[in-house]
């Protein structure tokens, strides 16, 4: 039975054009992030070539105002962007699931408190908090950045999962599990969570995209990683060092184009998954 369900899921997943397109783009960029830096001939921050040189066989994506190799920066930046998305999105999803499940399952006073807290963090503009935290950290790494991004991104996920848990916890199979004496934690993890697995997966995808966009904005404001390279930081440097005024499109365009493609692919994948998981939306 299990195998058959999985088979059916794969069948509809592979038939879905949106999912196919989104996943291919994402895998393409993931592969580029994995092997790209190996082809980079220079250190991303080293001054290696003539300043402001357009793309050429020697410098594939051109060079910056200071003669840094844009391709090396791009390849390394892509890698850290995806890492931030994975870790930040992962933490955001995990916190959202945890808080949403507990609030929805326990109900009562605990729910009131958690819900109030969720609402407060939901209203606070995420980026404003990230700015104030990042500004006071003198040394910032990609990992710390992703943790902070994850810790501020969970509220909408928690709210949605809480609502789902509410509707699931009154079902018979949950009652049955409770009567059989299972611990609440076990019921949450083995009875309720698997029943909204598709939803949790889609939450992760949206959190993934959100973390990438948040990181890009934070880096662009100049509060990105102090060591290393990221796509947002590239755009920040490009704007600060007059790439716009000098018309250095090879420095301005690639980082944002990659972010747009990745996040767009994630959104399209999400719509595709929705159609796969929800039989009502399937186009037959």
């Amino acid at each position: 039975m299990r195998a058959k369900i999985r088979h059916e899921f794969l069948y509809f997943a592979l038939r879905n054009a949106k999912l196919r397109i989104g996943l291919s783009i994402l895998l393409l960029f993931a592969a580029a992030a994995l092997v790209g830096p190996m082809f980079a001939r220079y250190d991303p921050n080293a001054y290696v070539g003539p300043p402001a040189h357009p793309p050429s066989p020697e410098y594939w994506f051109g060079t910056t105002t200071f003669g840094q190799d844009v391709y090396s920066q791009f390849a390394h930046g892509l890698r850290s962007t995806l890492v931030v998305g994975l870790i930040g999105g992962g933490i955001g999803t995990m916190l959202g699931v945890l808080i949403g499940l507990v609030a929805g399952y326990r109900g009562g006073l605990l729910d009131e408190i958690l819900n109030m807290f969720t609402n407060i963090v939901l209203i606070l503009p995420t980026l404003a908090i990230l700015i104030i935290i990042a500004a006071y950290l003198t040394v910032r790494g990609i990992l710390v950045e992703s943790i902070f991004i994850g810790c501020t991104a969970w509220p909408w996920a928690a709210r949605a999962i809480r609502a789902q848990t509410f509707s699931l916890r009154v079902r018979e199979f949950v009652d049955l599990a409770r009567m059989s004496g299972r611990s609440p934690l076990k019921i949450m993890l083995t009875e309720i969570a698997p029943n909204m697995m598709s939803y949790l997966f889609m939450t992760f995808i949206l959190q993934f995209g959100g973390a990438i966009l948040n990181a890009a904005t934070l880096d662009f404001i100049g509060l990105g990683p102090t060591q290393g390279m990221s796509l947002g930081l590239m755009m920040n440097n490009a704007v600060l060092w007059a790439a716009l005024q000098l018309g250095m499109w090879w420095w301005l365009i690639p980082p944002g184009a990659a972010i747009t493609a990745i996040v767009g692919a994630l959104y399209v994948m999400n719509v595709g998954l929705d159609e796969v998981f929800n039989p009502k939306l399937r186009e037959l």
Partner: protein
Amino acid sequence: MGRYLGRKLAIYLLTFFFAVTIDWLIPRLMPGNPVDTMVARMALRADVAEVLRSYYIRAFQLDLPLWQQYLNFWIALSRGDLGISTWLFPQPVIAIIYRAVPYDLLLLLPAILLSWIAGNQAGAMAARVRWLDNTLLPLSYILTATPYMWLALLLAWALGHVAGLFPIAGAYSFNIRPHLSWLFIRDLLWHWFLPFTSLFLVMFGGWAIGMRNMIIYELEADYSRYLEALGAPQRLIRKYAFRNAMLPQITGLALQLGAIVAGTLATEIVFAYPGTGYLILQAVQNQDYFLLQGCFLFIITGVLLANFTIDIIYALVDPRTRLGMTGE
């Protein structure tokens, strides 16, 4: 309706309290302290640095007990005292922020309102027309996935640098002083157009997708089917669907405010537009912590006020809230 707004107001006050506490707590919680950083940057002799350090600690009242510092922070805040900027020393932070506010509003208000209206109309239309759906939807997905600053960079490069149609920096030309005349207003609008357009386009995508999905959902709802069975004209059904779909879009606007503000900050940085985003960039580069914290409080206050305004509008638009019939 009074109860509904009262509840919302209570949450906003609590949020404000929470935000101010964060604003106060974070500098004290983080490793390393700003006074040390500030003194270290001056590169003084060790004994002079020590004197200056103790002076700063007294000046910023960091030698008081924590609860007193916290209380003083609130008292200062209630008088509108956000400290003195170190970047534009000795101007008070609040005065610097006041100067930036008009530019923020000039960009934000038209961009939010127009994109919301246009996006909703386009989305509702797309749910009706197949070819529009097939073109508008992919475009909207690309737009909504675009980081704000990248679209801004793209427009600035294409229309500003290559085509030379629009200026790419500042809110008005350097050779004009702000005054009330056609010349100045025209110049202002000319500088305003690109940042506005890039904000408008990114937001437009999101609203169009949301509205399209909502309309399709509403047209599947029982009341639509019932109206259809009664033989009501399509236009009437669409009208009802649109009205019902608008409510989640209003809530969506409240939820999106944070992201919109973030996008505006980034867009202002691209165009060196003298709003809060530009201030934050300067504050970060000059390590002006007071200005940064002031901007933080200003953004929070703005977002909370906007949220409350949206709640009032929601209550006015939705008869159920108006009559106190929902638990929301």
